[in-house]
């Protein structure tokens, strides 16, 4: 289990907004940082891993908690 350095609460936002939130925040954090994107739009489950692939960032996986699904992303570069 990874503990995120930061949690972005994008619940209630429709795609592409959760992806945009991750894209804005991740470069502001040090390389190696992990951001958890909380998003209840089902498209986030597809689009956050796809964004990581397109941008060369690392998708760590999906965590399901009381807050709904969270998508963990690690800054690689």
């Amino acid at each position, binding site marked *: 289990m990874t503990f995120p350095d930061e949690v972005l609460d994008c619940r209630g936002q429709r795609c592409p907004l959760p*992806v945009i939130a991750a*894209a804005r925040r991740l470069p502001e954090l040090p390389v190696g940082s992990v951001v958890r994107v909380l998003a209840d739009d089902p*498209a986030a489950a*597809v*689009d956050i891993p*796809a964004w990581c692939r*397109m941008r060369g960032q690392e998708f760590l996986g999906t965590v399901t908690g009381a807050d709904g699904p969270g998508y963990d992303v690690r800054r690689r570069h």
Partner: protein
Amino acid sequence: MTGLTVVGSLSAPIGGIMAIPARYVGFREREERAGVASPAVANRRGTVSASPVYLDAATAAPPHPVTRQALLAALDDGWADPARLYGQARRARQLLDAAREAAAATLGVRADELSFTPSGTAAAHSAVLGGLLGRRRVGRVLVHSAIEHSAVLHAAEKHVAEGGSVGPVPVDRLGRLDLPAWSAAVRAPGVALAALIAASHEVGTVQPVAEAAEACAEVGVPLFVDGAQVVGRVPVPAGWSVLTASAHKWGGPPGVGLLVVRKGTRWESPWPADERESGRTPGVVNLPAVVAAAASLRAAAADAAAEAARLAPLVDRIRARVAADVPDVEVVGDPDRRLPHLVTFSCLYVDGEALLHALDRRGFAVSSGSSCTSSTLRPSHVLEAMGVLSHGNVRVSLHRETTEADVERFLAELPGVVAELRAEAGVTAL
């Protein structure tokens, strides 16, 4: 008149051709006086900069000229119930028989294997539920690819709700069926039916139907192939037991589907008993539309190879130019083994619905697999199964009226449309 003679006449207008354009124009004029805006009228009102470019043939292709001719002619000759025993009914029966012979000949099947249904969706439902019912003693498992059309998936959901089970088979990043997984799935005990789309309606990737059929044949599992995007465009691979298609995808009228059940296939109608269409689909057929469907299928199939050769390079051009001219875009689907007329791409950080509206304002009609454009607000299950970006998604599908100039205009305007939307959303530097 013999059936064969009527078949011959299907390629030519059946009724008085001189009357057809006049009637059609008269209808259009009445419509305009009544304030019903046709695309051209909306255009003249200044909301669109140039003539509309329709690029959504995979949803519904514009009617082939033969469709209009045959439909109007058959309205005069084919309104009676073909099942009755008087002159008008016999004429209708001849037209129905001729339409069936023509469609069957085009597909290379026997006429008594082919039924006309009220839609491609109804045909797909019948194929799935009837195929499962016919082999319920063998088992209750439906194997299907993860990228089937929603009509197939909805029939599968009904099957599950009634106690059956399903085995979805994954695809790779390009949308190609995982053949080893498919072979293993159809070998499992209790498989009644396997369903595979001939080519993805969303991304255009052609599926390995022949290989999948071979795996099914080895274990005696019938294969249902959804041919909606291939019939009338590219040859249908052999090896299937049940095939369906939809007339408005090849330029036929809406509201006609084809259901073909090969001889020897264990298939049982899932619907209440009805003697029409060999008992495969209930209710009287829309005969004028059926005649138009059969006539246009033959016309489309006759031109299919030439059309594919004309459209495939245009799709290649779209694939290359979109990737080159639009930053942060993912062109999806198999670049080689693909349909000749369909291409899909996703634009990073762009809202799919906003993109469709922006393109519509410029006169471009396209569709999208993005969640915001669907009634369920879920992303396309096809894009999801492939693991590709689902937002900012656009599907472009070409047809016989699509010109090189249409494609060039789309390619010229798209980068600006995407850039504008990104600027509005403040995501240009991400």
